[in-house]
């Protein structure tokens, strides 16, 4: 039973095609990593899936209840402190002020933000902290599907792994579906059930690989080996680390 199905999606910006015939399916409780070279249209695809862009061709079917999005940039409201930013998306759920405080404290703990950090404005936070506020904001609405667009790219290796375990772990345990865009094959190999590779020119999904074992249960050794195997022995990933080929040509 799929909670997100993209069928033959095509998109063009001002007549320039960036996506063509892309189809993908995500089942309930599944975490799918989407990789592809920079500029291949990953963010565009994610925005289409989340309903923020209307595709030129194809259609999207969503079977989940409520989604949240973690954008490539934090997209915080400058004039609200971290707490206010998280509370902003909770206004629709009409929580009592006590429940609101408890919810914010819970998600802040998941992303390692202290009560002191919550009082700071985005300009007073580091890049990684801003990204973590954005993650906390997404978790706060208790979504059953989350779109992540390179959410941990501003974090160091240790913190990245902690975020994967805490934030992503909490979601997957609740049975939420996840579409996770990343550059980092090792990250993909650690967290996902499946890895999809977007073709460099955006023309469809070049292929997909299932990863053995349960997400987040794999140790560093296993995910490193898996990423190495993909990169060295698998032709599907051959062009992944090329810088946007179309621009070079």
């Amino acid at each position, binding site marked *: 039973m799929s909670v997100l199905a993209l069928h033959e999606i095509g998109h063009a910006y001002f007549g320039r095609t960036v996506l063509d015939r892309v189809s993908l399916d995500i089942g309930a409780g599944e975490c799918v990593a989407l990789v592809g070279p920079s500029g291949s249209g990953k963010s565009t695809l994610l925005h289409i899936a989340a*309903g*923020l862009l209307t595709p030129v061709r194809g259609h999207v079917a969503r079977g989940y209840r409520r989604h*949240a*999005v973690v954008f490539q940039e934090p*997209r915080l409201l400058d*004039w609200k402190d971290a707490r206010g930013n998280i509370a902003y*998306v909770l206004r629709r759920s009409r929580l009592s002020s006590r429940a609101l405080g408890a919810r914010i404290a819970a998600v802040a703990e998941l992303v390692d933000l202290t009560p002191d950090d919550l009082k700071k*404005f*985005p*300009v007073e936070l580091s890049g990684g902290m801003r990204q973590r506020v954005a993650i906390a904001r997404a978790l706060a609405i208790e979504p059953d599907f989350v779109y992540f667009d390179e959410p941990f790219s501003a974090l160091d290796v240790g913190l990245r792994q902690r975020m994967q375990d805490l934030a992503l772990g909490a979601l997957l345990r609740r049975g939420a579906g996840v579409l996770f865009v990343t550059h980092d094959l090792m990250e993909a190999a650690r967290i996902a059930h499946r890895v999809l590779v977007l073709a460099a020119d955006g023309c469809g999904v070049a292929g997909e690989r299932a990863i053995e074992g349960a997400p987040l249960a794999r140790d560093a050794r296993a995910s490193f080996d898996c990423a190495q195997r993909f990169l060295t022995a698998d032709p599907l990933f051959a062009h992944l680390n090329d810088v946007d080929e179309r621009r070079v040509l």
Partner: protein
Amino acid sequence: MQASTSSAGVLDAALDRLGRIGRFLWSAWIGLAALSLIAALWQLGHEIFGDFVLPAPLPVIAHIQAIVAAPESHPVILATAERALVGLALSLLVGGGLGLVIGYSPAAIRIMRPVVTILIGVPPIAWIVVVMIWFGSTDTTIIATVVAAAAPLLLIGAAEGVITRNRGLDDMARAFGAGPLRRATLGLRQAATTLFPALMMASGTAFKVAVMSELLTNAGGVGGALADARATLDVGEALAWVALAVALLLLVEYGLMHPVRSEFERWRSAAQPWGVKR
């Protein structure tokens, strides 16, 4: 536990606010220093050019005291203040409101740009003549002139703020289920960044234009008093009235607009280096 943390939060917020008010009042010393500098230059000019061209600051200050002490001059000052403020409020309503709406519509922006340029290019004198033919020497004439001069500034300020808003935030709000109305409040909030500077300019314009059109239409107020001073060639009296008009403007700016602005832009001051803050 819950209660104690929340009361600590309230205490923190109160202390923070007290600190900010204190800093604001403390910054008055710098304003006083600037005024003293102006007075010193003024005194220098007086000593070079003589009493008839530029009276010394101290006698003018005595003039101001006399005007403020005389009960019959209060309605004169209040009349000008009221006209300028009503004009400013109407400008904010009409110009600012229209600017917000226009900011959201690319087609409207293209149509309105040349119109606004024309409106700004027309000198206030031209408005005075036309408006006086319509309304005579009344409050309405002065207020209408003020609106004609100030509204285009606010229209540009508001429209520019909406146009340059961070559109990524619109998408963010939509992704989290916000409807069109809540997204519009996001745009409004971001428009404050450009609306406040426009409002400062517009308030200066409002007072200047109000005094000028009072003088030209003989409609009383500070402008009318200035016309009387000119008739009797009393430069000291004229300067005293000009200083009063400027003082009114300063009162509105520092008593009303700066506090409101700093409330809106608290986050900006959080990021400012120490020297800029004070």
